């Protein structure tokens, strides 16, 4: 039973990690119907930004809490800037092109950003400082769920609720939903669609940056390539949950994380990915739009 609980928490943490990245995928898809393959790289850039800021601040002897807050803000701002810029130069000019064109552009952006960080930084793995301390009150259960697991779980939950509130009850949220439903009509009723799309990229990128910082602190190392696998897994989770749906992204991530954790625990880690992707195939066969996705209406 202990073992089951250990795997359960391991799976929830892993799922929450995926969720922080998957939210960005799903938001962008919901608004402009584009799979933003460069999103994993935004996550990686967020991790690098927080790494640099945190390292500099710790040299000047800032307290840990201040380092975490400033590094998170800096990463969010910097990554958002990248997200918006990518949208402006790589996706906006292709908005009326066939759907495949922005997709290819996204893949190109992803490769470009990876190599850009490789050249601008280093190809080595860098040690990421432990930004989340070991809380004393967690010590009795540390062998099951650690402090960083707890922080990741709480952060993901808070982020999901905040996002839901934002989209349901605020002006920009309403504009987002309108743009998602029908971009032309939204424009006709006076919504600045470009601004709505930019806002979506800002929010998605900031979340990815936050995720990048937390996850890098959790695993203790970064390099230019971390965005690739994390991005693929988060994308899978978003599709699993129903791409375009925010609760779906979180649910899909948790399902994926738990599946991987239990597959490793009870079968073999050799088959971890086999189970994860078999699950994806099964769900898409029976529910092509994902767990919580809406069936897509053809826009003529």
């Amino acid at each position, binding site marked *: 039973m202990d*073992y089951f609980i*250990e*795997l359960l*928490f*391991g*799976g929830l*943490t*892993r799922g929450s*990690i*995926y969720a922080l990245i998957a939210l960005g995928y799903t938001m962008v898809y919901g608004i402009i119907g584009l799979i933003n393959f460069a999103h994993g790289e935004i996550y990686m850039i967020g991790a690098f930004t927080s790494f640099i800021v945190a390292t500099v601040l710790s040299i000047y002897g800032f307290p840990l809490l201040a380092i975490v807050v400033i590094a998170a803000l800096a990463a969010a701002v910097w990554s958002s800037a990248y997200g918006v810029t990518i949208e402006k130069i790589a996706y906006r000019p292709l908005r009326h092109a066939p759907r495949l064109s922005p997709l290819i552009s996204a893949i190109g952006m992803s490769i470009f950003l990876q190599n850009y960080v490789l050249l601008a930084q280093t190809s*080595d*793995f*860098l*040690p990421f400082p432990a930004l989340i301390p070991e809380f004393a009150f967690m010590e009795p259960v*540390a*062998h099951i769920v*650690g402090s*960083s*697991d707890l922080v990741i779980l709480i952060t993901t939950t808070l982020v999901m609720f905040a996002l839901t509130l934002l989209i349901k009850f605020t002006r920009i949220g309403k504009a987002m939903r309108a743009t998602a439903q029908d971009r032309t009509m939204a424009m006709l009723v006076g919504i600045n669609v470009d601004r709505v799309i930019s806002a979506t990229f800002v929010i998605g990128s900031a979340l990815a940056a936050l995720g990048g910082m937390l*996850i890098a602190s*959790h*695993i*203790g*190392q970064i*390099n230019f*390539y*971390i965005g*690739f*696998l*994390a991005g693929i*897994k988060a994308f899978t989770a978003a599709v699993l949950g129903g791409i375009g749906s925010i609760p779906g992204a979180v649910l899909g991530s948790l399902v994926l994380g738990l599946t*991987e*954790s*239990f597959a*490793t*625990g009870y079968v*073999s*880690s*050799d088959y*971890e*990915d086999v189970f994860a992707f078999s699950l994806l195939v099964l769900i898409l066969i029976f529910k092509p739009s994902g767990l919580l996705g809406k069936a897509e209406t053809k826009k003529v």
Partner: protein
Amino acid sequence: MQSGLKKKLFVAALALGFAMAVPGAVVAGDTIKLGVAGAQSGDLASYGLPTVKAAELVVAQYNAKGGINGKQVELLVEDDVCKPEVATNSATLLVTKGVDVVLGHICSGATKAALPIYKEAGVVVMSPSATNPDLTQSGDYPNFFRTIASDDAQAKTEVDFAINTLGAKKIAIIHDKGDYGKGLAEFAQSFVEKSGKAEVVLFEGVTPGAVDYTAIVQKIKRFDADAVIFGGYHPEASKIVSMMKKKRMNIVFISDDGVKDDTFIKVAGENAEGVYASGPQDNSKNPLSAASIEAHKAAYNADPGAFYENAYSAALALLNAIEKAGSTDMAAVVKALQTEKVDTPVGNIYFDEKGDAVGVGFAMYQVQNGQYVEVKN
């Protein structure tokens, strides 16, 4: 036609070999012919050319001293491009030219293809770089020796250390699904099983680059392993080691020279303390190693390339064996290689009955105070 020619050449070569084996009856001139075969052109030339240079330097050194038992040493260099089909030709050519001993070949595949030809001709072959375990362990080639550890030697070092030095009884073997890591893990598994003193409680691969290794770490704990042998590289190793510390586990972690890298210590930080890793033996304190490198720099004004020290050692071992045996007869040379210790850049070595150099190979290191320190087993 071709096989007929080969046969003729062969007979000639055999006749030559026999003639030379008879003491006193010196037919083929007054030189000892050291063949050097390996890749000297093509993609893998950088693996083979340092061997030629090593042989040239050693031969020059011997000849300056007056040769072996009064005979000068002559070099016969053949290029096999690391291709098995070319290697058989080079071997035949060398045998035809009356080669006495061969330094080479470089690649395992080419070596394997050439060995039967040398075996029939009664020529001792010593490779500085062919690491395929079967070359020696199959017992098919009594004329084959090497001055490099075989592919499975590293796994053997790790398993011996875990079982005999640390007394581990339950071993979890984890790998990164890559050629290097998985290969090593499979060798380790078979050595643990063969030892009979410990059991493999877990054998699994992890996905490199995954965001989280909690599940596999919990599994190691569940199977109550008292040592983990990891085959792979440092990024995964440091994630697993850190996660084990986070889950308050205190299990011995043993890994390979993919982890015996300062980056591992840098990335894993305090979590790296106490981790064991196997790595090639350190020759830097051996004066002969320094001397061989100096000789290369003096002659070629450049740093030596791949397998240079192994090749230098092999050339020394071969010529030393001929000198001690007083003949180039295969049985006598083999006996000398197995009994006469020789000082070489890779250490004071001799060869076991299968042909692997004793005293060449891997050592265990442990991270102590942020540095890898050699530990004795």
